[in-house]
């Protein structure tokens, strides 16, 4: 009974809470709320691959940046509609994620983390050095955002927020459904708990690991595209390891292997980190580091109190 109430009440409360900022007529709050939602999607996508399937990626900043750059450059240089830009970004990130997934078929644990970290670093170097396409160290800007939004600044921000919330919510629900309601989700969990055993039970671990990679990087790319169209500036620092660290902190904070836990963790940690900016701009990352260390060691289930972590 209680479980049933939770199934309905928790998502309902989340949706209401998510839509509240749209009613607050304050551009600063709306800006922060929109960004928090983008982070939530990125953290959820990381969790699908790393928390749920147990394949720890240190390169989600790379997939995120790929999506952001794909969206921004396609809209700026090819005048692609931002709606299609979202799809394009997800496809580009999924393609690279799939390619990165191939080493993952052979590698475990440490090695995978190192490869993905190297991949993100290559994305960052390309972004920094391919001046014609990416604008180099200063980044890419002056491209249009979603068409047909109200012209008044406040209404414009509110509309943009609602768009981002809708896309993020739909994505998170889709990822959660994939993990909880399909055979793929069961396979993901089996791979996390014991890959060798999963293989012996006839689960095609190779296929499902690759699937987790592609889905996770596609949603990370989608988050990047939302970021690009919202912030209107993409610079190489997006691909830095600090981004990955932030995302992992959010997922660990919220609770690994639940998909919605990292969403919660992202909203809270982003809020905490922005709040700390008022004290001093450097303290937010100290907090991120502390949160990661404390939660990994002492609160392994995170705030969501999900299932045992790998």
């Amino acid at each position: 009974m209680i479980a049933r109430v939770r199934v309905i009440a928790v998502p309902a409360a989340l949706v209401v809470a998510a839509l509240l900022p749209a009613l607050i007529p304050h551009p600063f709050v709306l800006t922060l709320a929109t960004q928090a939602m983008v982070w939530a999607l990125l953290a959820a996508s990381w969790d699908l691959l790393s928390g749920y399937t147990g394949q720890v990626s240190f390169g989600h900043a790379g997939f995120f940046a790929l999506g952001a750059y794909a969206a921004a450059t396609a809209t700026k240089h090819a005048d692609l509609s931002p709606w299609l830009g979202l799809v394009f970004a997800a496809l580009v990130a999924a393609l690279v994620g799939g390619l990165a997934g191939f080493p993952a078929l052979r590698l475990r644990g440490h090695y995978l983390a190192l490869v993905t970290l190297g991949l993100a670093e290559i994305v960052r170097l390309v972004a920094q050095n391919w001046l014609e396409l990416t604008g180099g160290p200063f980044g890419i800007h002056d491209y249009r955002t979603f068409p047909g939004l109200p012209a008044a600044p406040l209404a414009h921000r509110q509309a943009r927020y609602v768009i981002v919330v809708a896309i993020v919510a739909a994505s998170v629900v889709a990822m959660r459904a994939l993990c909880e309601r399909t055979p793929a989700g069961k396979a993901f969990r089996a791979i996390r708990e014991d890959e060798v055993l999963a293989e012996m039970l006839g689960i095609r671990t190779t296929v499902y690991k690759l699937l987790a990679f592609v889905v996770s990087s596609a949603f990370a790319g989608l988050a990047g595209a939302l970021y690009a169209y919202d912030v209107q500036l993409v610079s190489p620092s997006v691909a830095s390891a600090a981004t990955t660290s932030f995302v992992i902190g959010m997922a660990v904070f919220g609770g690994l292997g639940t998909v919605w836990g990292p969403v919660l963790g992202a909203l809270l940690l982003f809020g905490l980190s922005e709040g700390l900016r008022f004290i001093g701009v450097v303290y937010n990352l100290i907090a991120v580091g502390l949160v990661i260390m404390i939660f990994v060691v002492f609160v392994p289930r995170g705030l969501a109190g999900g299932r045992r972590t790998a």
Partner: protein
Amino acid sequence: MLESLAEFAIQGIVLGGLYALFAVGLTLIFGVLDVINVAHGEFFAIGGYLAFAAIVVLHWPGAAGVAGAAVGTFLLGLGVYPLLLAPLKRRLGARPRGPLYLVLTLGLSTFLQSSLLAAAGGDYLRVPPYAGGVLDLSFTAVSHQRLLVLVVSIVLLGGLFLFLRFHREGLAVRAVAQNPDAAQAMGINLPRVFALTLALGVGLAGAGGALMAPLFNVYPTVGFPLTIKAFAITILGGMGNLAGALVASFLISLAEAFSVMLIPSEWQNAIAFAVMIVMLLLRPSGLLGGGGRR
């Protein structure tokens, strides 16, 4: 042409000394604790800051500053195992260790990096060279500072190998690397060896940071690119293989030095990552490894 080749070779060898100091420490930690220390570069940065504090602020002589920085980082490193890794190990118990240690040291890296930023600011701090002048080789000139880095790196690495080969504690470290259970059965105190190994590894990084301070300047993120490069080196050499790490350090640094003849210098840093990915695809056990699947 020949002269510039020789010049690149010398640059590569000097840089290789630094990479070796850094990567051998990382490899030692991995070999004994089975933990990849993502925060290794931050200890390099701490070494630089300690050298700055000792030499520029307290006006110590250069040699004392470098030694002090190395010892300081070593002492800091002594705390990492008991305070961070041991509690996680206790919680995980007999379950597979998984990549949680990576996430944990990533948290430590972020924490240390931003703490340095908060404590010292983001400015590039300058440390005066420990040795002035240049060595004139007629076709090229090498600054004494660079030679000093190379010589001290070699001395420190030589000391480490002697320690591991002959000293009682060093033998314990190698025993644990080979078989922790058997080592414990023989009465070796595992937590003590783990703490000591971690401190030794990051102490080497701290010494490297102090040595390089006059060449690199000192800022909070100075060590992070080195960490990623050292990952590539340890994979090229074979994870946990000290001799492999040593060889791979020089291979990567020479490849980087010679690469300027073929590709623009801003892509130099991509070489290590490309090598890492190719190695992982073709031969994950490393150049000197057994070739088995990991």
